[in-house]
């Protein structure tokens, strides 16, 4: 028998691990991914594969040759970043753009800060926003949903529901719910994203605070605008909830561990902030969609929120 081990308490562990959490999020993304594959066909497959593979490759290369640290690609976080980046791209975007996006996401937004857990901004969103600003045309010509579409680069394009809404057309709510609409690869189907949300909650990977506060804020804010002046702001709150990247952003992007606040009270502030900024950009801004910018802006506020909003201390409730 070896020598007895002495260590400070506790002597048991819950068995939770980084890779378990990452795997859980990946599982939660499966329904939305399947819907994306169905409506956008070959393009979706190519974009997502390239994105995931290049993210993993960049992380491996940077870890191996620049940071010279431990191998971290096994924890699944690079796969997750890759998949989330792909979810935020149109399925007819050229491969080289995807690779650039992955390089920015992993190289600049994640590894340059020290890797998993140290990044101040959501890597996948940084990648997406970089592409959006650099290649606005490619990033905003969305392919029309055609079941099992075999075309990749030459897919028929159409406007997204949000762009349509800006110009006064309202899409069918049922289509938004199922995903039969134009948009990024993984953001189209509300129902699939909600299934993922329920799974994440059941597995206790995230708490309800961030997604619900974002969705509620958007609902209330757009509701007030709509009922104050239905002619100017004709889209009802329900449209705002179901269209664009709001659900994907609220459930999968804003809840990213490293870039969201640590306390439940802070999470609520963060969620409300994202909701307000999203609506302001959507309704008053130049872009039809503002979820990515809203999340990145609030990511930047997260350290401030962590400093000033403390958890509810024991014994603080009643004096």
């Amino acid at each position: 028998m070896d020598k007895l081990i002495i260590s400070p308490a506790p002597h048991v562990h819950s068995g939770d691990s980084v890779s378990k959490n990452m795997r859980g999020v990946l599982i939660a993304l499966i329904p939305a991914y399947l819907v994306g594959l169905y409506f956008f066909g070959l393009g979706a497959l190519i974009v997502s594969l390239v994105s995931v593979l290049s993210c993993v490759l960049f992380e491996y290369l940077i870890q191996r040759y620049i940071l010279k640290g431990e191998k971290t690609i096994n924890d699944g976080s690079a796969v997750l970043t890759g998949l989330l980046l792909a979810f935020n791209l149109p399925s007819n975007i050229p491969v080289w753009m995807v690779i650039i996006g992955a390089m920015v996401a992993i190289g600049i937004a994640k590894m340059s800060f020290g890797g998993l857990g140290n990044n101040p901004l959501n890597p996948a969103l940084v990648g997406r926003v970089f592409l959006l600003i650099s290649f606005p045309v490619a990033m905003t010509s969305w392919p029309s949903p055609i079941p099992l579409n075999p075309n990749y680069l030459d897919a028929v394009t159409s406007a997204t529901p949000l762009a349509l809404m800006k110009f006064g057309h309202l899409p069918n709510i049922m289509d938004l719910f199922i995903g039969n609409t134009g948009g990024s690869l993984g953001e189209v189907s509300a129902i699939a994203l909600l299934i993922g949300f329920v799974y994440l909650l059941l597995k206790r990977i995230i708490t309800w605070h961030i997604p619900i506060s974002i969705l509620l804020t958007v609902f209330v804010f757009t509701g007030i605008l709509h009922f104050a002046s239905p002619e100017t702001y004709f889209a009802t709150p329900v449209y705002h909830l179901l269209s664009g990247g709001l659900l994907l952003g609220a459930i999968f992007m804003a809840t990213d561990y490293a870039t969201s606040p640590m306390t439940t009270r802070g999470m609520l502030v963060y969620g409300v902030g994202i909701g307000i900024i999203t609506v302001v950009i959507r309704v008053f801004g130049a872009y039809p969609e503002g979820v990515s910018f809203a999340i990145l802006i609030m990511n930047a506020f997260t350290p401030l929120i962590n400093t000033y909003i403390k958890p509810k201390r024991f014994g603080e409730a009643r004096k």
Partner: protein
Amino acid sequence: MRTFKIGGVHPKEYKFSAGIGTKISLLPKQAIIPLGHYLGAPSKAVVTKGDLVKVGQLLGQASGFVSANVHSSVSGKVAKIDDAIDASGYKRPAIFIDVEGDEWMESIDRSSTIKRECTMTPEEIIKKISDAGIVGLGGATFPTHVKLSPPPGKKAEVLIINAIECEPYLTCDHQLMLEKGEEILVGVSILMKAINVNRAIIGIENNKKDAIAHLERLAKTFTGIEVMALKVQYPQGGEKQLIDATIGRQVPSGAIPIEVGAVVQNVATTFAVYEAVQKNKPLFERIITITGKSMAQQGNFWVRIGTALATVVEQAGGMPEDTGKIVAGGPMMGRSLSSLDVSVAKGTAGVLFIPTIESARKKMKNCLRCAKCVSVCPMGLEPYLLMGQSENAMWTEMERNRIMDCIECGCCAFTCPSNRPLLDHVRYGKTTVGGIIRSRR
């Protein structure tokens, strides 16, 4: 079902030894009775080398406020008074007694009849408890008589009996309630009389249904004693958490339970009070649980204080082959031991053998900032932040972030997906900040 309101985890229970009747442990050849306690000043020895002592005879006189008497658990000759390694891993003063026979003090009532009436005044009861050297048997071993004497101007409203046993594996309190239920309830009514309250709550976690039913049936014959089943949640046995769970009041930071009108006593302490007051028997034995995943015979043993753990473990079939770590107490807050040559102290609730494969810690990874440690902390602290500040010696900031509220329950390190040693750093920070605060006075 009630429980405390902030944080908490639910580790797997592994209560293997539940329902296994207590056995009386063999006497050791030499008893090593510690004079020191976990807290406070060690008591002063009143016997010298060569003295013949009987079971129950006073060995050490309390010295100072937070200190308790120590009695002999065996009869025999005092071999020496020397330092011995205790569960803390450091040497502390102890009295070594070579055991001869088993001769008890005549004043101790050894009959098994249950005596329910108590005619003493509160002062007499507290004096008796102080004389009998009773300390909190939950682990912190704080002298019971100190807890029963509230500071001037404070009045207790309710007595809370801690029968939670929220640590995984341990079953000694559970077994005590099943076997000594009536004695415990008499002890509760004595304590109620001592602090002059007419309401007592026995808090039991809902995984001990037989004990709840047993005590509830018996409690009908007593006035003012209520048995309360609580939702299973660690660390419900923490004093502040238990008060929150049972009467819904939160003790403010830095205050003691009497601030909200509560006095908390452990269930095993209550039984010791019964024995001291009604049977005139000082505290020199307790139940300890011997358990572990690969233990052949799990068991609960009545053990005299000062018996080497090796002696008790032998009676439970010896140490398993694959043991990688021995823990005195439960897996969440217990201390790991370097050998079994440590003697049973008043606060030793059990010995747990952890197999080698589960002993070593897993590799630490980057902090994900997943906020799980914050959400499970029962005191509403931010362990991730405190760990970083402790590493960087930011003591002032740590104090501002309420480090002294930490109860060292281990929920943060238990839950961390990156296997970060949160509690190690937090505990070190707490010790350092505590020292700074004391030096300021």
